[in-house]
C-alpha cells in the first residue's frame, strides 16, 4: 500500500462515483437507479478510508464513518425497495417513465 499515492485512489473513487451518477441519470428501471445509488455511496466510502489511511492522525475515525455510511445505505435501500414493491403492486410497472400519472 505504501507505493500508491493518495491521488490515484481519489481518481479511482471519482470514476466510480461518476459511473454511479451516470447509472442513476440514465436508467429507466427504478431498481437500476437504486443500484447506482449504492455504487455512489460505495465510492464515498473508499474515499473515507483512503483519507483516514493517508492523512488523519487517528485512523479509526475514517472507518467508523464508513460503518455509519454503510448503515445509512442499508436503510435507504430497504425503504426504496419497499416503495418500489408498493408501486409495482398497484401499477404493475417498474419503469420510471411509465409512472407519470400524479394520481391513481
Amino acid at each position, binding site marked *: *500500500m*505504501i*507505493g*500508491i*499515492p493518495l*491521488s490515484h485512489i481519489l481518481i479511482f473513487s*471519482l*470514476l*466510480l462515483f461518476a*459511473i*454511479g451518477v*451516470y*447509472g442513476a*441519470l*440514465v*436508467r*429507466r*428501471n427504478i*431498481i*437500476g437507479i437504486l*443500484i*447506482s445509488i*449504492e*455504487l455512489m455511496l*460505495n465510492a464515498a*466510502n473508499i474515499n473515507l*478510508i483512503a483519507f483516514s*489511511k*493517508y*492523512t488523519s*492522525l487517528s*485512523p*479509526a*475515525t475514517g*472507518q*467508523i464513518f*464508513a*460503518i*455509519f455510511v*454503510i*448503515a*445509512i*445505505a*442499508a*436503510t435507504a435501500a*430497504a*425503504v426504496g*425497495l*419497499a*416503495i*418500489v*414493491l408498493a408501486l*409495482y*403492486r*398497484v401499477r404493475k410497472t*417498474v*419503469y*420510471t*417513465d411509465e409512472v407519470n400519472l400524479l394520481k*391513481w
Partner: protein
Amino acid sequence: MPILEMAAKFGTYAVMAVILIFALGVVTLRNIFHCALCLAAALIGTAVLYVAFRAEYLAAIQILLYVGAVVTLIIFAIMLTEHLAGKTVRQNNSQSPLAIAGLLGFVALLTVVILKTPWPVTQTALKAKVSVMALGEALMGTYVFPFEVISIILIAALIGTVVIAKKDAPEERL
C-alpha cells in the same frame, strides 16, 4: 522482499480496474438481474480493496452488510417485480448522450483539482494499523451519540418498510 511490495501495488491497481469494469457492467447491462450480480461483484472488490488498506474489520462488515443484506434485498425486489419471462425492454432513457457529456466535464474538472492540491500525507499514518479494539473504544467512546442516532434511524426504516410493503387490508384498498 521488494518484489512482494511491487506485486501488491500491481495487485491493488488490478483490483481497482476490475471494480471499474463491474461498475460499468452495473450501469449498462440490459438484464436487471445481471446488474445486481455485477454490483455484488463490485462490492466484494471494494472489500478486497479495504483489506489492501489494512482495514480488515471494515472489509468483513462490508461483505456482511452490503453483499449479504443489501444486494439480497435488491434481488428479492427484482424477483418480486420482474415477470418470470423478463421481456427485453429499452433500459436506458433518452438523456444518455447529454449525461455522458456533463459527466466527462465533471470528471475532468475534479481530476485537475485532485492532482493540483498538496494532500497533507503523513508518513506515520501509513504504518499505523487500526485494531478492532481501538475501533470498539472509539465507537463506544467519542462516537456514542451518532451510534445511538443510527440505531434510531434503522428502527424507523424497519417500521417504515414494513408499513409500505405490507399488503393493505382489503377494505381500505384504493
